[in-house]
């Protein structure tokens, strides 16, 4: 299925590098994932990873801008990833700049306030996105005071206590090469890559041994309902069901289950809640996994007069699944969709590169398209039903809402 050769290597400084050459494209995408996120911050450091996301580029942005490159980044509670795509001739300059940003950033005091302000305002802007906020609220409701319950974006009013040294300490601790993955997909020069990687391993050394997650025990999810009431035209809901980490044997059966539940057109919730009843414009289920935990989520937005009916129908559908399981044809259909969509997404060097970053960070995540296809194809209806048995869908349910509904409304809807 995959036309190109994929190489995996670990440099002497611990950096994992995954590269996939594609000679027939005009662009190349590079990405770097570092294990810096809210889960890995100490209580007095919360938000530092977000500031670093911008601060490490201070002084280097112009180099990328000159090439017309659009750099992007995305935070997660246990990593931050950076990536960019350029025309092939600019590969070396793009990669050199990225490596310099993460391995030897200036982190100058004079520019700290501007980037702290930017991170705080991004957190505030996210608070304008109620659907995204409900996902954070859900993890708070189900995760309590555990680090896994933190928001990847931090609290907009929490950045004031951070100073440059606190954030630099986080950089020193978490931006270690052994705590990072580098991925390259597209049309690049192998000799240039080798030269840049050699340079990288000579200049970027591990300074500390990387600490693992705060607790040796996997996080525990507890059921909970939380509502942040505010004036809005829709109620934004996220439901959460305890799931599994990436390396769990039930990961792919649950991925297929999530596709069946709400993976778009033809899924159970899409057909019942949107197409038959017209209660939502969008409804979607997802599998969010971390190194030692996971959550299955269902997200929707619905006007106040429709939201509780939508919630009741979702709960009924989940109970139906617990009682009756899934059908063979559903499983085959969901598997087919996942495989074909995976192939289609791989057309983009950016998408392929990001998948390689994920596979480099989560050890059991399939690296090649063939390996991914096999993992999905191996899932049987029995495996999905057994996964439901091991991970009940309604027994530990969490619900978070932002909008015109009260917690008492949600409890009533969930009980029915």
């Amino acid at each position, binding site marked *: 299925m995959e036309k190109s050769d994929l190489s995996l290597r670990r440099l002497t400084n611990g950096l994992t590098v995954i590269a996939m050459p594609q000679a027939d494209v005009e662009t190349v995408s590079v990405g770097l994932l570092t294990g810096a996120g809210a889960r890995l911050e100490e209580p007095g450091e919360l938000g530092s990873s977000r500031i670093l996301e911008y601060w490490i580029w201070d002084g280097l942005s112009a180099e990328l801008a000159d090439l017309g*490159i659009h750099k992007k980044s995305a935070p997660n509670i246990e990593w931050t990833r950076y990536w960019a795509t350029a025309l092939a001739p600019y590969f070396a300059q793009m990669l050199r700049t990225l490596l310099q940003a993460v391995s030897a950033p200036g982190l100058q005091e004079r520019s700290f306030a501007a980037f702290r302000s930017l991170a705080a305002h991004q957190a505030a802007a996210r608070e304008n996105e109620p659907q995204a906020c409900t996902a954070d609220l859900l993890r708070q409701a189900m995760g309590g005071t555990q680090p896994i319950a933190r928001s990847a974006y931090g609290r907009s009013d929490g950045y004031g206590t951070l100073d440059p040294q606190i954030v630099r300490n986080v950089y020193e601790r978490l931006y270690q090469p052994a705590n990072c993955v580098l991925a390259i997909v597209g049309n690049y020069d192998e000799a240039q890559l080798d030269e840049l990687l050699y340079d990288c391993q000579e200049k970027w050394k591990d300074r500390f041994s990387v600490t693992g997650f705060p607790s040796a025990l996997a996080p525990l999810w507890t059921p909970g309902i939380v509502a942040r009431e505010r004036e809005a035209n829709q109620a934004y809901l996220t439901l959460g069901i305890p799931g599994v980490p990436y390396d769990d044997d039930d990961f792919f059966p649950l991925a297929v289950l999530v596709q069946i539940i709400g993976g778009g*057109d033809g899924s159970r919730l899409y057909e019942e809640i949107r197409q038959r009843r017209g209660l939502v414009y969008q409804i979607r289920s997802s599998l969010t996994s971390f190194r030692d935990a996971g959550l299955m989520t269902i997200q929707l*937005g619905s006007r106040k007069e429709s939201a509780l009916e939508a919630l009741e129908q979702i709960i009924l559908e989940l109970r139906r699944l617990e009682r009756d399981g899934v059908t063979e044809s559903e499983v085959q259909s969901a598997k087919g969709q996942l495989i074909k969509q995976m192939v289609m997404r791989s057309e983009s060097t950016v998408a392929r590169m990001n998948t390689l970053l994920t596979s480099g960070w989560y050890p059991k995540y399939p690296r090649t398209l063939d390996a991914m296809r096999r993992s999905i194809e191996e899932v049987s209806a029995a495996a999905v039903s057994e996964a439901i048995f091991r991970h009940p869908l309604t027994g530990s349910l969490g619900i978070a809402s932002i909008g015109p509904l009260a917690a008492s409304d949600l409890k009533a809807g969930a009980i029915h």
Partner: protein
Amino acid sequence: MEQSSVTLPNKLRVLLHRMPSMATVSVCFYILSGARDETPKQTGAAHLLEHMLFRGSEVFSEEDIRRAMRETGSDMNAFTAWEGTCVYARMLPEYFGSLFPVLADMVRHPKLDAADYEVEQSVVQEELARQLDEPRSVMLHELHRISFAGRMGGILIGSKEQIGALELHELRAFHWSHYVPDNTLVIITGAYEEKQIDEALASLEDWLPGTGGLDGGLQSEETRQGQSMSPLSEADGRVSTLEAPLFRNGAGIWGWRLPELQGAEHYAAHLLCTLLGDDNTLGSRFETVLVRARIAEQANAVYTSFTGGGMLKIYSTFPPGQEEKVQDIVMDELRRLLEGKSDPEELRRAKNKIKTQLAVDASTTDSRMISMAQAWLPGREMVTLQEVLNRIDALTERQLANLAGRLLEEPPFQVIAGPPEHAKLS
């Protein structure tokens, strides 16, 4: 890369870009009519009709359509704009032959069943509710209200009352008038075989040109041109301030109406936006004078072309009370452009950004398809990727200065959102 165009005997225009190394094929039916072309009784019809296309057609039931998408793993979607409606699908090449007839029948012969219609109206009401919760959408609606007369002064998908009052026969009327081959552009990109294209186009040859189309007394190009772009009365005002509990930061949209741009001017408008700061603000003026200066958190410029004119918009979010400062700085930047005061490298950088983005767009079949539509629309002619790159390269500082001068001729329309509490940093 092989790009070509063809016009069928029924006046259906087709653009093709064969990309043999791609993993997929993308196809779209771009109807050259949108919300702007609705009669008053049809308000909301363009968008609701787009929704209803997925509810089944004469040959394919809704379940047939969903099964086709599921079994092929394809993406199928649509969007409605002021002057166009696009229905598209992306699929693995081996499914083009089976999916193309489905898409074509959805567009040509939607079932438009009454029972489905009521449910879909409810779905669209949910979509509107969501839009009304998004600060940027609310501000955009308001900008249109104060800067356009007629239909374009309303909400693109219609208001709650308009959606509720819209009758199904108005959708049929809109379809009958506008979903005709002489008002449609088909674009196919990706790893298709020529034989597949021949078969697909042959299947469209019996699609009759509009008998009740644009000549049928409905909105013609001239009517579209004369109506919605007419100036507003002074009483409507150019500034609107919104206060809403959802707005956590200050935000503003400034909009300039422009006359119809010709040829290179159209590209100059996009280059101007990139230079000021569009989605990729890296190294842009806004990044330097607004974001790094801590006056605004973000600022983006975008140009949208309409028949008879267009609009250049700048959207920004900022701490409370900074709106005047943001506007002053934006106007200063336009004056600097008019006066030719710019870093010579700026133009090169902005051009590089656009060229990189075009190359990235050409790396997936669906984004290439959309790029081709965007390049075709202004002049209604195919513009190859290389030609677009050449036109970008040929742009000069003087052309940008001329455009900046036009923007400075009149003050912009403004929508400013008032924030409630805002986090203060120590």
